[in-house]
């Protein structure tokens, strides 16, 4: 937890407000080649309007701004579905080695054997972890992994001349990217209900699965933090209807060495390296969302796929690839971090990650269940979804509780998601937080519950000591101001 070292607030002026004509933060070297003719002046631009500040101003401006953030490095950040775990510093360092950071994506394969080997090894490890051995690291985030997976499903059906399959069945608890990706893939989204235990309503699924079904998208564990007990039945229903099973593996942090998705009948899944595999979230990316498929589907993977051949490692395009979903080979330096993470933990360590993540979540759930409702009254996996329904009745919303947590230097849980839970507060502690931190969180959550009755205004007005209080988001959207301008 950090604290103010300044009265009077932070100077929030933007770079352009600090700009002074002629000031500079950088000098380019002088040209060492003979002067060349310039093109026709009609093509040329006068000036680019950009900030003119000194180098110290650049450093100070961004350093001070950084202190306005909560982050893993400074705060407990139990944001559900986001797996805000420790991002090992060594991984950042290693991915920045000149031999990894300063290589061009189009260099001849012989000059990047190390890089391709790394990708190949990571593919293999992810295949082993998920039990789905066809892997492409191309997707740049989870959502792109989903899209890639859906393209593969469509390509599979097309290849079998079974193109009438244009429906994606998606549970009502699904993350928004699932239906959005399905729509991009030209699929009609049909929603399957969750039952009162938070499971997929198997009977409803049975009704919906048919010859139009391209794919069933299931988040495992679900966005309620629950493992689907009927998983084998579900995958059988979908397969029997001729559809494929897509697993959203954003929650893979619960499953490392605990269960393999491929063993459960999953055909396609993605995983977020920026969650389970500890690569930093960066305030909203970059990420990496590898797609993993069964052997049978591997020929449809997006390009490239790293392959080991007699003459060394090469980047190859699978036989019936769905093509290029982005510019080059995915987020290479994110892949490098994830590979370092897997190597550092090894098989024992990875298993321990999931086991400890599960214990921590259940511990919080057990210690808060008398004060907060649970979305489902059973053991959870790596996250627990609480409901502030009881508090809501006493006059305080989930939002207020979330904002109040900020006052204690604890980041808010994910709010109002999944949508099927009233006043949802989705708490994911991860394995990298100590019991002491969990106990502190528990104590704060219990205190907040007390405050609902004893000092509700503390919650309504929260947060109190942050750089800003609650923001007027309605006006922001109604009259959008999206850039600096001299007038604003």
């Amino acid at each position, binding site marked *: 937890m950090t604290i103010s070292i300044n009265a009077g607030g932070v100077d929030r002026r933007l770079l352009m407000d600090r700009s002074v004509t002629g000031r500079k933060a*950088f000098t380019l070297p002088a*040209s060492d080649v003979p002067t060349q003719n310039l093109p026709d002046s009609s093509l040329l631009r006068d000036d680019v309007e950009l900030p003119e500040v000194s180098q110290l101003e650049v450093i100070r401006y961004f350093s001070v701004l950084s202190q306005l953030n909560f982050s*893993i*490095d400074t705060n407990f950040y139990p944001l559900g579905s986001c797996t805000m775990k420790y991002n090992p510093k060594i991984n950042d360092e290693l991915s920045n080695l000149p031999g990894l950071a*300063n290589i061009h994506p189009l260099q001849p394969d012989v000059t990047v054997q190390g890089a391709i080997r790394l990708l190949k090894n990571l593919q293999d490890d992810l295949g082993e972890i998920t039990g789905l051995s066809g892997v492409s690291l191309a997707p*740049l985030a989870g959502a792109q992994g989903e899209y890639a997976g859906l393209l593969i499903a469509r390509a599979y059906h097309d290849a079998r001349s079974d193109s009438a399959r244009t429906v994606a069945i998606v549970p009502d608890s699904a993350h928004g990217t699932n239906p959005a990706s399905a729509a991009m893939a030209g699929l009609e989204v049909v929603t399957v209900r969750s039952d009162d235990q938070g499971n997929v309503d198997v009977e409803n699924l049975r009704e919906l699965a048919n010859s139009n079904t391209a794919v069933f998208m299931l988040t495992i564990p679900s966005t309620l933090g629950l493992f689907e007990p009927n998983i084998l039945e579900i995958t059988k229903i979908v397969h029997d209807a001729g559809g494929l099973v897509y697993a959203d593996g954003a929650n893979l942090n619960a499953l490392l060495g605990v269960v393999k998705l491929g063993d*459960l009948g999953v055909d396609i899944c993605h995983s977020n390296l920026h969650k389970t595999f500890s690569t930093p979230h960066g305030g909203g990316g970059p990420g990496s969302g590898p797609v993993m498929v069964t052997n049978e589907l591997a020929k449809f993977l997006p390009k490239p796929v790293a392959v080991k051949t007699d003459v060394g490692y090469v980047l190859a395009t699978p036989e019936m690839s769905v093509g290029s979903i982005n510019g080059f080979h995915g987020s290479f330096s994110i892949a490098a971090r994830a590979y370092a993470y897997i190597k550092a933990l090894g098989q024992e360590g990875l298993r321990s990650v999931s086991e400890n993540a599960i214990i921590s979540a259940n511990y919080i759930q057990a210690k808060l269940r008398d004060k907060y409702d649970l979305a489902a009254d059973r053991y959870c996996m790596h996250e627990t979804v609480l409901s502030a329904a009881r508090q809501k009745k006493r006059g305080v919303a989930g939002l207020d509780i979330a904002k109040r947590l900020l006052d204690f230097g604890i*980041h808010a849980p994910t709010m109002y998601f999944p949508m099927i839970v009233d006043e949802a507060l989705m708490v994911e502690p991860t394995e990298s937080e100590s019991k002491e931190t969990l106990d502190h969180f528990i104590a704060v959550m219990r205190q907040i519950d007390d405050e609902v009755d004893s000092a509700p205004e503390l919650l309504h007005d929260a947060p109190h000591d942050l750089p*800003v209080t609650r923001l007027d988001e309605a006006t922001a959207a109604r009259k959008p101001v*999206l850039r600096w301008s001299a007038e604003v």
Partner: protein
Amino acid sequence: MASSAHTSPNHPYIPSTDSERAEMLGAIGVDSLDALLEDIPAQHRHPKLNLAAGLSEQELSTVFGSIAAENASPSSGYISFLGAGSYSHYIPSTVRSILQRGEFVTAYTPYQPEAAQGTLQVGFEFQTIVCQLTEMEVANAGMYDGPTAFAEACLMAARVTKRTKIGVLSSTDKRLSDTLLAYSKYQGIEIVEVAADATDIPDDLACIGIQSPNFFGEIEDVQRLTKLAHDNGALSVVHVNPTALGMFKAPGEFDVDIVTAEGQPLGVPMAFGGPYVGLFACKKAHIRQMPGRIIGRTTDTKGRTGYALTLQTREQHIRRERATSNICTSTQLIGLMVTVYAATLGKQGMKDLASLCYQKAHYAAAEINKLDGYSVKSSGTFFHEFVVTCPSAPPKINEALLKKKIIGGLDISDRSESGMLVCVTETSSKADIDRFVKALSEIGVSA
């Protein structure tokens, strides 16, 4: 099969000790981890993971040292003339320094604006800088990369115009059009090629997608093409190289509707292709059709300025299957790099940089053009990339160059006969260029 939770040795990334785990399980009311896993089919629980044992940090460093050593880079003495979508530029120390701040690196997407004003204000700066470079009205907070930005821009044009045919200039990088293809495949979109000198286009195009400088490094007549598009009810989507904008007229001057770019040249390492960031700007009128995250300025309950994600109703987490894009995790941190880069170079720096790239590339082109057998194939104005027609197959020439620790230009003989696409930036010294030219001349037809 038994849980190892109680016996696993502690790992630096996992604080809980055996006794703490036991205590927590006790509080949960179970006596083993397995009791928590009963929903998982027993026969599939605790599978064997065929992975190596964990490494200490020191061992990990050694492993990565070997991996890095297997790659040819400037630090192993190589010089390179590759461009084609990823560019070698000097990255100022300010960028790396700020990028080390854990408060930026280890934060999540700013869903709680009160606890993320740092990320948000930087994003607002990023949007400002994108607008300034492109001279467009509005920009978003970044896309995955240049090609996906271009693809999403074309799809946005289809939404705006409610048309389903997308025109792409024939001089465009295949990486752009391929990504567009993968992005539009199942959306009932047809992609047609438009010649750069077309004076006529079909009247049902949603847009003309233009790359300028194009794949071959040359400046397109964006003004004329944009007018052509508008005359036919289509939008103009222009993909630029941001470094070139330090010198060449910005698309905003030509009434372009949507501008995209690969942000990598602005302070982002080449890193074998990623992560990068796509720049995306458009006219204000189309703002609600924009994909991606957008940050807006507003005030708090005390009237203080603050920033927050805005126009979220376009996004997947609200609009779901009707969202303008499926993007969730984007590229905020790369946006930070771009922002610090642009703030560091500033007005004068961006100008000087573009000029330096131009000067060096034109010097290299002139020298290569003097060589027997080689000629620079250029019809118009190029910026820092140009096509060399080689006396023998470019892959052969590149192989010979490699022996001299030179990574030559990209073989584009599939698009230009015996063509090699050469790029020169400020990171090549005159000595490097001369070494390259000399090597080419030595290799000549013999390759």
